[in-house]
């Protein structure tokens, strides 16, 4: 065997071992979710007993958690509220963040470093520390228990992140393309619309999906400001916790349902994100 062949052989073994380790780590990460899914197909008694795979799976828990009963928060209502607050806030975030990121990336304004730091510094304050003034303001403006208050807060919450992400995507747009478009007769808005946005589209999509996920998952503001009305999915999941009787199977079913949109969005975002990050390489 020549030295070359041996080197190739060693490479294959390294790859196999690394592959095995990757699968193992992946399984460890995925195990709690698998557990959740299995529990959601059991009845409460089996779910609370010693774990076993010897049971007859059913979708009854899903039926139970999605049944609407009078006076209680229904799944349909919670999903609608979550969808509206997440989608609307994300659209507003993109609408505001795209021009901001353009100003910071393509023709940096004076003190752009300070501007960028200001954006991210708004995330430094602990949410708990800000909730009392927020609650008072919301009450003052009659916004408690409305979708609007969550839309405003989710927009504010995601805006810094979106500006930072979009700025780095926009910086990948070759400068000459912007200049070519300027010479070709496009206005500022035209350059944004016909050059920057199409080229940075994968990055914009990734940013939007990430904002969507963060808004969908948000619990703290929702539970503090919207405890009585316009409740979102995370609150609905917790309504399945009861003080009497077992609830693990039902809670598992609700958790799985709440996670499905995020899993889909995350999967799409991941593909787009990789394209977005590779964007700079395509010229």
């Amino acid at each position, binding site marked *: 065997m020549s030295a070359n062949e041996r080197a190739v052989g060693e490479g294959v073994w390294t790859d196999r071992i690394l592959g095995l380790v990757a699968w193992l780590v992946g399984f460890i990460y995925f195990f709690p979710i698998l557990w959740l899914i299995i529990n959601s197909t059991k009845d409460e008694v089996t779910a609370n007993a010693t774990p076993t795979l010897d049971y007859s799976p059913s979708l009854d828990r899903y039926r139970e958690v999605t049944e609407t009963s009078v006076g209680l928060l229904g799944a349909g209502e919670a999903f609608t509220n979550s969808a509206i607050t997440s989608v609307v806030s994300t659209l507003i975030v993109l609408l505001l963040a795209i021009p901001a990121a353009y100003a910071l990336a393509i023709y940096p304004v004076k003190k752009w470093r300070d501007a960028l730091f200001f954006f991210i510094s708004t995330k430094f304050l602990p949410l708990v520390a800000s909730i009392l003034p927020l609650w008072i303001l919301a009450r003052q403006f009659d916004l408690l228990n409305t979708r609007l208050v969550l839309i405003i807060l989710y927009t504010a919450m995601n805006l810094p992140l979106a500006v930072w992400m979009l700025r780095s995507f926009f910086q990948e747009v070759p400068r000459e393309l912007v*200049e*070519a478009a300027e010479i070709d007769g496009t206005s500022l808005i035209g350059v944004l619309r*016909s050059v920057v946005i199409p*080229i940075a589209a994968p990055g914009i999509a990734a940013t939007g999906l990430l904002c969507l996920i963060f808004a969908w998952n948000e619990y703290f503001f929702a539970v503090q400001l919207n405890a009585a009305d316009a409740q979102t999915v995370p609150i609905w999941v917790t309504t399945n916790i009861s003080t009497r009787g077992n609830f693990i199977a039902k809670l598992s079913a609700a958790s799985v349902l709440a996670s499905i949109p995020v899993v889909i969005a995350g999967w799409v975002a991941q593909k787009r994100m990789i394209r977005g990050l590779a964007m700079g390489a395509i010229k």
Partner: protein
Amino acid sequence: MASVTYHKATRFYPGTERPAVAEFDLEIPDGELLVLVGPSGSGKSTALRMLAGLEPLDGGQIKIGDRDVSNVRPRDRDIAMVFQNYALYPQLTVAQNMGFALKQQKVPKEERRKRVEEAARILDLTPYLDRKPKNLSGGQRQRVAMGRAIVRSPQVFLMDEPLSNLDAKLRVQTRTELAELQERLGVTTVYVTHDQVEAMTMGHRVAVLKDGILQQCDTPQNLYHHPANAFVAGFIGSPAMNLVPITPADGAARLGGHRLGFGDAEGDIDLGAALTVGFRPEAARLGDDGPLEARIRTIEDLGSEVFVHLVVAHEGDDIQIVAKTASPFGGRNGDNVRVSLGGPVHVFGADGERVASTNATLA
């Protein structure tokens, strides 16, 4: 179509001491292909970008035709630019790329199509009109960039090193095509390059820049034969002109210990101060009977001509000069040869400016 005038155009980049382009004066008549050439950092690209409106002016003005465009936005200057990396819109097809500017000008669709097809025909791009730039070769992309400029029929073409991303062979071929195309369209063109061969072969006139200052603007022949200063003399021509610093003694200039006679130009030259003497490789004659003794360092035989790099003892130092001779050349590295001067010699003063050009003799 129109002329272009730079009048004391100046550009400072923020945070720099020296202007990138300083009081640049240049008049480019209608239909001329003017080449801006210089080493990197000479301000040639900045001067072009000032004309494009991509760099603001910090002083002076720029006119296209009779119109002062100093404060006019790029899109209102009626210019088209070809970029070094072509700057094609990746999401648009070749046809859409070429028609983009017309679409912005709200040219009707039918006329747009006609003009794009016409440009594609001129540039041999018709089969590729529906392709995206990423599915084209480098040469094709370059032609699309050209096509995007010509469909607009602008007043002025601006070209920023448009050939430097092509391989050597294609570059030479495209160079000729581009010059022919410019001739045919008759559009005033400002062309930036760092390659003096490109400048010499393409330009009707060539403007040489250094450190943001215009050194000389003239026809390629005049730049070659009558350089205004030592920088232009050394920059234009390949291999470069031989430039030898000389400290005259006893009222005479000596090259390798041999007295240089400047003929009737003698009166123009101050032999009391340091000089630089320049002569082209073709002015250095190799033979058995020349006055100057030299040793062969290397020989570059290009087939049609031979450049012989020589070492000469001069004012206590070894200096290098290059001589051009016909092929075949019988010498070898390390051989001793004798050199005489058989062509014009340029004399530059201590400030680098040319004082005289004359057929000098070496005694």
